[in-house]
């Protein structure tokens, strides 16, 4: 066996290793993360909303209750997006660190933004590919689509208003009044709206840019009052230990 033969074998080996890495990244990370995130939601052991056969929760537009700021890396909410499927539910954790939150726990909240229901901007990030890809269908969201956040006690029902594609330095999308033209997070004195911002990578598999979806709070409801009508047909018993 000559030197050329060994080089040939090494090149084939490298090729196989690259294919194996792609299989791991594009398939295995999803298998592991989907399983982990489903287990997290299941283990929340939250109280189920009453009588899920009557999917109507009281719609309230007064000042919503605001959760205390969670600890970094803790799971404190679940996310329902009917456009992503009736079985779609993901954990929402505190922080957007890739390794500890987005790769393992699912969706993460930008800690410098507001909590759900607060005046300002509740901003979350999630993978579009790999690691369970909670925002893989983010481009399917249309104006008016519901994005529902549930904490232990409260539903926050946001409606999508717009989407845009930005570069990663356009952090103005996270501002209390989102403004992609700025790269600083500036807060005006008088906030009047409750925004939602979702960010994920764009284009898929390349991620030079970010896909951003904005929404506004439509209403909130206590979990004890039922299930938001937007979630009719969605299995909301997940996470309630059933």
């Amino acid at each position, binding site marked *: 066996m000559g030197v050329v033969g060994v080089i040939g074998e090494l090149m084939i080996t490298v090729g196989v290793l690259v294919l194996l890495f792609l299989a791991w990244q594009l398939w295995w990370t999803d298998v592991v993360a989907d399983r982990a995130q489903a287990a997290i939601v299941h283990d929340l052991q939250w109280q189920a909303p009453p009588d899920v056969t009557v999917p109507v929760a009281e719609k309230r537009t007064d000042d919503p209750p605001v959760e205390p700021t969670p600890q970094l890396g803790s799971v404190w909410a679940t996310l329902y997006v009917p456009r992503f499927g009736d079985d779609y539910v993901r954990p929402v954790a505190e922080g*957007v660190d890739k390794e500890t939150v*987005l790769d393992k726990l699912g969706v993460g909240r930008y800690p410098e933004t507001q909590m759900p229901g607060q005046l300002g901007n509740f901003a979350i990030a999630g993978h*579009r590919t*790999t690691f369970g890809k909670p925002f893989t269908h983010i481009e399917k969201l249309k104006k008016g689509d519901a994005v529902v956040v549930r904490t232990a006690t409260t539903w926050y029902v946001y409606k999508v208003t717009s989407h845009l594609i930005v570069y*990663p330095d356009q*952090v103005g999308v996270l501002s209390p009044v989102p403004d992609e033209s700025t790269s600083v997070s500036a807060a005006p004195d008088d906030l009047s709206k409750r925004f939602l911002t979702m960010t994920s990578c764009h284009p898929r598999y390349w*991620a030079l840019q970010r896909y951003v979806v904005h929404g506004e709070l439509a209403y909130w409801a206590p979990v004890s009052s039922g299930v938001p009508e937007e979630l009719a047909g969605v299995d909301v018993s997940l996470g309630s230990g059933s």
Partner: protein
Amino acid sequence: MYAALWRVLPGPAWLKVIELLVLAGLVVAALFTWVFPAIEPFVPGTGQTVG
């Protein structure tokens, strides 16, 4: 390289095939468990956040 591995493995041909399969399985398991997670942060293609 692989010819040398074949010569080093003990037993008849059918046993060598089984040994190779086991070895390949161990290598893939080690790659999936330790190697790939370690190099993934340095591979471009994901990035979900702004800022």
